[in-house]
């Protein structure tokens, strides 16, 4: 790099109370480069970018912009210095229109009166630049997560940022949306924008990155070229080598009893006559694009939503519509897509969160079996190697992977026979991800069945025994593990896409 760095961190440290989150980090970001920040959850990536974005302030060290010490004491200061951030948690105001979201805080106006025409024009331009095809007047909450993410990126683009921070922007995107994003990033790179990119997907590192800064436990371990082999990156991140990324093993030796049978399930336009079965000891993957109806399908089966037609049958008979309580008692466990808003009660402790499904079943005369619940929670969190201070720690303070293990732990305690997993490893780092896969193996070894929805194709292919492909509310194909490839799945997933009914 012969250009002078646009951003330089010098010996930056940060601690929260007694915890050192970052120690003595020194690193440069140059114009027109994509610097990938790699590290497990809790390694300090988020804190690092939050300091650049003006949310946190370094305890020691300094941040230089174009060689000058910069005052980044507030988000506003950082933004006016040309630093835009797309955070992991979307910053979308759901009730406002797409256009208003894109231009939030900078709405064009005449003497305080909103200039709708100019707003629409500017917003249209911005969303067109990233190839997002939505009406800018629609409320943002009518869009899916993926599209909301793109709205956020469009907003950052309208800021003409010199430094763009993208915190796991691809986590919620599908393959083609990721391609679109990378195209935009390439264009920004040509224009000389410096970008800091965080992702858990190693294959994206080589595709989009120039250099990779690896963090582990608050230390900057190394800065390596993006062409570094994945195994080496993982070794740097985790501090040990991971042999097998998808350690799927079929070890169940009993009869392949039918555990779950879904027949002709319909819900609005999103689920249109889905039939499927899950047998003891198998993992059934469900692939498809975002919006294909996969989440809705799982929610109907779990009783979270009511459905219009069809039946859901377990070994001991049909399950009532829209009755989560009954589904849970009969052995269904849903690991929802959005663990923070649907999976966990963040303010409650680990022991509480792990114990919700067994609260009633283990009670006597309406009284909680407190001793038993604690003992079982200790046991299951140990088995899942949840990293925490103790079981009374609020689940909010845990990293994403460990939070997800708590959701799994709940169903392990409940003895659920059928697990419905929706994006089970989204936002989960490599180490914890493998531990979750091992837990899936354990479930199927004991004769349970798993129905797994994932947008992470390698995961679907690596962990499933059968792959169902969903497209526009229907199951459009079933592939055995051996014959399923990225290409065969994707061609089914995008085929005959009936756009008009979306």
């Amino acid at each position, binding site marked *: 790099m012969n250009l002078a760095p646009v951003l330089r961190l010098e010996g930056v440290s940060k601690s929260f*109370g007694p915890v050192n989150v970052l120690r003595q980090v020194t690193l440069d970001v140059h114009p027109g480069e994509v610097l990938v920040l790699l590290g497990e959850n809790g390694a300090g990536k988020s804190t690092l970018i939050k300091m650049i974005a003006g949310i946190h302030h370094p305890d020691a060290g300094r941040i230089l912009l174009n060689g000058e010490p910069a005052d980044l004491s507030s988000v506003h200061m950082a933004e006016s210095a040309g630093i835009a951030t797309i955070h992991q948690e979307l910053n979308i105001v759901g009730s406002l229109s797409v256009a208003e979201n894109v231009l939030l805080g900078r709405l064009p106006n005449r003497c305080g009166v909103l200039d709708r025409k100019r707003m629409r024009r500017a917003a249209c331009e911005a969303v067109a630049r990233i190839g997002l095809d939505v009406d800018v007047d629609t409320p943002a909450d009518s869009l899916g997560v993926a599209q909301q993410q793109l709205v956020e990126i469009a907003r950052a683009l309208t800021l003409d940022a010199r430094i763009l921070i993208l915190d796991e922007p691809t986590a919620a995107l599908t393959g083609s949306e990721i391609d679109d994003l990378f195209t935009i990033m390439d264009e920004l790179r040509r224009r000389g924008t410096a970008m800091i990119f965080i992702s858990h997907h190693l294959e994206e590192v080589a595709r989009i990155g120039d250099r990779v800064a690896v963090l582990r436990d608050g230390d900057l371990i190394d800065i390596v070229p993006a062409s570094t082999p994945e195994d080496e990156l993982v070794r740097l991140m985790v501090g040990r080598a991971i042999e097998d990324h998808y350690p799927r093993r079929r070890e169940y030796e009993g009869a392949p009893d039918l555990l779950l049978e879904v027949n002709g399930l319909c819900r609005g336009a999103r689920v249109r006559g889905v039939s499927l079965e899950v047998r003891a000891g198998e993992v059934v993957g469900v692939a498809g694009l975002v919006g294909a109806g996969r989440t809705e399908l799982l929610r109907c089966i779990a009783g979270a939503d009511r459905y219009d037609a069809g039946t859901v049958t377990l070994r001991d008979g049909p399950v009532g519509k829209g009755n989560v309580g009954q589904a849970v*008692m009969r052995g269904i466990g849903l690991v929802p897509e959005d663990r923070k808003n*649907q999976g966990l009660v*963040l303010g409650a402790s680990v022991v509480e969160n792990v114990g919700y499904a067994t609260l009633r079943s283990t*009670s006597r005369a309406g009284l909680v079996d407190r001793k038993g619940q604690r003992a079982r929670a200790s046991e299951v969190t140990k088995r899942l190697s949840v990293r925490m201070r103790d079981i009374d720690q609020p689940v909010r303070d845990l990293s994403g992977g460990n939070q997800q293990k708590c959701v799994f732990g709940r169903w392990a305690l409940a003895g659920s026979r059928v697990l419905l997993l929706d994006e089970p490893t989204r936002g989960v780092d490599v180490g914890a991800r493998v531990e979750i896969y091992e837990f899936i193996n354990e479930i199927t070894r004991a004769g349970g069945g798993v129905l797994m929805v994932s947008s992470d194709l390698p995961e679907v292919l690596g962990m499933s025994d059968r792959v169902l492909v969903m497209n526009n509310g229907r199951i459009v194909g079933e592939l055995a593990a051996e014959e399923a490839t990225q290409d065969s799945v994707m061609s089914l997933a995008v085929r005959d896409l009936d756009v008009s009914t979306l």
Partner: protein
Amino acid sequence: MTTATPAGRRLAAQTGRFVSANGALVGLVVLCLALFIATPHFFTAENLVNVGVQASTIAVLAFGQTFVIVAAGIDLSVGSVAALASMAAAWMYADAGLPGLLALLAGLLTGLVVGLVSGFATSYGKLPAFIATLAMLSVARGLTLVISDGRPISTPDAISFLGSDIPIAGGVTLPVPILVLIVAGLVCSFVLNRTVIGRSMYAVGGNIESARLAGLPVKRVLVTVFALSGLYAGLAGLVLAGRLSSAQPQAASGYELDAIAAVVIGGASLSGGVGKASGTLVGALILAVIRNGLNILNVSSFWQQVVIGLVIAAAVGIDVLRRKDTRH
């Protein structure tokens, strides 16, 4: 501080942790100390008993409110429900000729039923709790006036007992309102901590969707919290009527705000999932101590309202700052 022994430092650290975990309790102690210094009439056994008796109505209302607030709801109707329950009981005795004890039970039942109605309206009827209970505030007060025709009704002995003193050994007496306060608080704490429905309240208040997807009976929990709140309001109303030996049509008006303040001062969050019976008790005591102290000091009635408002704001403000400090 540099010369402190390790044991001293440990003690200081422990004290710091205690203060930050029990902000309201520390506030109560500071308040009592200040009044102890300011006037010799505050810290007497008799006056402290008075504070307990005066705190009882708000405390019982606030215990009921704690269930609702833990489950992320709010019950604005408790003051009116207290009045309705006491008036219903007095009317059953005076006009319908029910025996005193049955009339008392009828009063409690009235509170429970009204709570159930609010509960069904919020859970199955999907009305926001604020609206449903605001409507109930008006309906219950109106029914109180309809029953009483706007006039006080004398209460039977069974209810007056709730406001009386019972003698214990050696001429010492124990006011029944304090007894009711203690029992109501213990029951509240027990339900919240030990029962399935109590733990479910925290889950529902913390995140209703997560609780539902974990298989918890969310609607039943919501109905239960409002039913309990109504029952507690009924009890509070009967204690209030017992103390006066008379059910008043305008009794307990505006008490819902005191009850909510007590719960929040006690460390609960209006966004749900957090709250303890012990904290609520401290909150109710703080309000009672302020009122008692300001009376004893003969502070002008205009300033009393200012002081009470400031103390509520300070208590909650300190709590918010403390929470912010412990999270990053």
